């Protein structure tokens, strides 16, 4: 059976990534299911590294597979039998892969780069993991492209402006729903380069892999009338993304990006969605080499409120019901408040990724 990998991505710190991860771990506890877990950040600590507020702890059952920095092993009560050393170095030591021999609390700091996460997911797959969960870090999304799909955690910690929150969540939903598996003309497979081609698949121009400087727009501008497709393997700056949408490409232009996260990183969800809308208005389409479906959204009304007069943070909450209803209206995937609704719905949503 193929290993299913799911990323628990967030829009900010304290949006409920670890709570969602723990809820899923708890719900899926079953001797017949082999669970693997790692984190691209630092999770399971007692108090937040920035706010000093309490954080949810991570409890791992015996038998779980885990990939974690060696420096984390003594920090929890779980006992891990190390099966492999990876040679991947982090600020907390080398990443080791192993199996939980005695269940207990665990601090998780795993691979924080995409290529390293790829290695770890491969290891877990070889070990026979049925489901691997990748706990996120802050607002980091890039490594999540290595998973089969994501659960998005968002809420008041990102912003207490519910209109903005729903708009951004909607934008992420739109981008993640765009198709993957896009093919590019054979001749466009140039390592690390962006490529512009015509409707016959003939290469018109090779450009830098990262479209960050204004010069590349000028180069494309001259060829816009002939172009039929553009592939960018890397990032696009927000300004270039705006400029691309304004170039006089013909109708039906295809834009191929590596994965949704690269597009999201190119200026944020709103800029990316605006780009998608403008392309659509001209009968064009935005597609990805690799898709990253959004399975569900988990919302969290909690946020750390900073008190200037005492220079510390205190827990605060926005209206839970209003938050859920707003976000439900903005996306076409299930939305849960895990603390109130329990983990069942969220676990069920994973089926959409299988």
């Amino acid at each position, binding site marked *: 059976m193929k290993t299913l990998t799911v990323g628990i991505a967030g829009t900010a710190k304290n949006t409920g990534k670890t709570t969602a991860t723990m809820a899923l771990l708890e719900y899926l506890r079953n001797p017949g299911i082999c669970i693997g877990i790692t984190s691209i*950040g*630092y999770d399971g600590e007692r108090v937040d*590294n920035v*706010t000093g507020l309490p954080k949810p702890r991570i409890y791992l059952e015996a038998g779980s597979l885990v990939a974690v920095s060696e420096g984390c092993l003594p920090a929890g009560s779980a006992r891990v039998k190390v099966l492999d050393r990876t040679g991947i170095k982090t*600020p907390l030591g080398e990443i080791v892969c192993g199996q939980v021999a005695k269940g207990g609390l665990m601090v998780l700091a795993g691979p*924080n780069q995409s290529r390293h996460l790829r290695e770890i997911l491969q290891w877990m797959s070889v070990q026979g993991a049925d489901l691997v969960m990748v706990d996120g870090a*802050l607002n*980091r999304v890039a490594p999540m492209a290595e998973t089969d799909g994501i659960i998005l955690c968002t809420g008041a910690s990102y912003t207490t402006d519910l209109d903005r929150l729903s708009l951004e969540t909607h934008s992420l939903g739109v981008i993640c729903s765009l198709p993957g598996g896009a093919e590019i003309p054979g001749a466009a497979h140039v390592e690390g380069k962006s490529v512009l081609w015509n409707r016959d698949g003939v290469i018109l121009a090779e450009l830098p892999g990262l479209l960050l400087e204004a010069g590349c727009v000028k180069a494309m501008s001259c060829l816009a009338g002939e172009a039929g497709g553009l592939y960018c393997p890397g*990032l696009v700056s927000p300004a270039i993304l705006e400029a691309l949408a304004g170039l006089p490409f013909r109708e039906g232009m295809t834009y191929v990006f590596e994965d949704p996260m690269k597009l999201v990183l190119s200026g944020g969800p709103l800029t990316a969605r605006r780009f998608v809308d403008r392309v659509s208005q001209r009968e064009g389409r935005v597609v990805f080499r690799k898709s990253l479906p959004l399975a569900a959204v988990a919302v969290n009304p909690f946020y750390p409120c900073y008190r200037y007069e005492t220079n510390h943070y205190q827990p605060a909450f926005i209206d839970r019901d209003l938050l859920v209803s707003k976000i439900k209206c903005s996306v076409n995937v299930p939305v849960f408040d895990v603390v109130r609704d329990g983990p069942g719905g969220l676990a069920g949503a994973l089926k959409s990724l299988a």
Partner: protein
Amino acid sequence: MVSRKVLLAPIDPVHDVGLKIIKRGLEEAGHETVLLQPDLQPEEIIQEIINSRADTVLISRTLGYGVAEILARFVDLADAAGVRDRVRIGIGGMAIRPELAAELGFDAGFGPGTSVEEAVAFVEGRDYVPGLAKNNKLKIDITESYTYTCHNSVIAGLLKQIAGIILAWTENRTSSGVLRARVREELWDIDRWRKYEKMTEFLEEYPRFCGEITRDFYLKGILHPKTRRFTREEAAALEEYIKATKERMEAPKLQHSLKKPLVFNQYGTGCPFMDTGHIKVSEAWGADGVIHFDPSWGARTEGFMDGFLTHQEDGTVITPANLNRIRQSLESGTLWQVRAHRGLNTPETVVLAGKFQADLTKINISYGALGAGTDPARMTVDGVEAIRYAAKYGLPFDIVTNEELCGVPAHKAFAGMLITAALALRLGAKPILQPLFCYSPEVMVGGQMKDNYVDFNVAKVLALRHIIDAPVWPGAPIGFMTHSEDRIQSSAATAYHACLAAMLGVDAITIASSDEAYSGGPISVPSKVDTLRAVGEGFRFFGSTRLEPSQRALDWSREIEEGIENVLRQVADRGDFVEALYRGVLGSREEGAYPGRNGRDTVMMV
């Protein structure tokens, strides 16, 4: 070494000084650097990384809420841009720790106190090994460079005369303290004790010279009512704690550019486990040495118990097992002083200190007899014997003058100190002069510190230096009586006194924790850290700045020296040091010094 290309990028509106310092260090190490301007957008920095073909990037940023997301986005961009495959990225700034660096997605994190060498090691892809100064302190013998030449010939003559009087007086006298020390010296073998071998001869002889409490311990197995033995679990936990702490211990240096004064911190919570915690904190925050404080009842009790014992009140009981455990907890470069300056166990304490390889002890006959409650005759007999053992074990000792705190004027206390020093030199020991750096009753009444705390303390040190070429170690602790229940005030007061001591070029200082005077119980670790940090900061501020004594300090210095000479003459004229103590020549009842009564009539003729 492969030369690296390093891009230094402040993701910060203003601050880039840390990166500039690291830039210089990297260039000195042979690496190429590019320092970007502050406040660039993450995308711009990514482009610079690509354009410059850097192989290492060092980012700096002061952290606050919301900033973590900016940094995480930068890391995400680097990841998505593919530069993480070939570029290592470190983050530095206030509040950055390895855990946070891991959470943000960086390869390394550098917080406050990071050395340039740490950053260079990261750039060169090697493990950082802290330098010698950071974790390999070497012990220093502060008596080493002194000749003990007496520059004042009159005082030299008087001291010689008085030392002779004392030695003649003690020649045919002894005490249970002296006899007990001899039994400990001759019949108690530390190697056999460590192997749990029963020393029958010692156990038969020793209780004969003990008081009721210690005799009950040896003959009936009864412990002192305020003590209990540690359990096996507690002892194992202590061993585990010491092991874990030693593994990550770094012992920084407080003195900045100076070699001295060495900084000593006291411990003596009553619980050797807690003491060990305090010692490890002192070491980790830069103390050069630690001083064992025993309970006040220990000075009134004839003999020592044994066993790993904790005490429910202040002062840590001296037993071989307690000293052994504490000795084992020390870092190799930490100086250890076991004080023996007073009380009925003075000579035996020196024997134990010697057998457990302490570095220093503390003896003063005058203070022991006047300010600490031991009968002058007994203190003199025991003090001379203690000095002999200090000489035998090569233990330098300071001569504390805390009788000043009772109200004895400095010149009288110093006369007593110099008498003990003269005895030490006659017997082959190495004395260290310990004037009080404090707001004593003498100056409170006399007004010498009405304007400042500097001049009179300077006068004391100048007077001693003018008399003899000997090491000076102000204490104990410095700033005594200037401290309050306000920890910031107390730390600052200690730091000012420490800086004054440093400017005078003294050899060592003893400092108190900031809550020592007002703790209402055991002192706390944060307060220990407060004081050590404040002292270190003071040393950093003044560096090797020297102090020019004021005319008033010079005048008082001369007055103190004349006063010392006058007191010594009175003692010499009396021809009987012990009688001089009883009669108040070295500190009178009116001044607040009462001859001690513990051990009265216990001196025996031989």
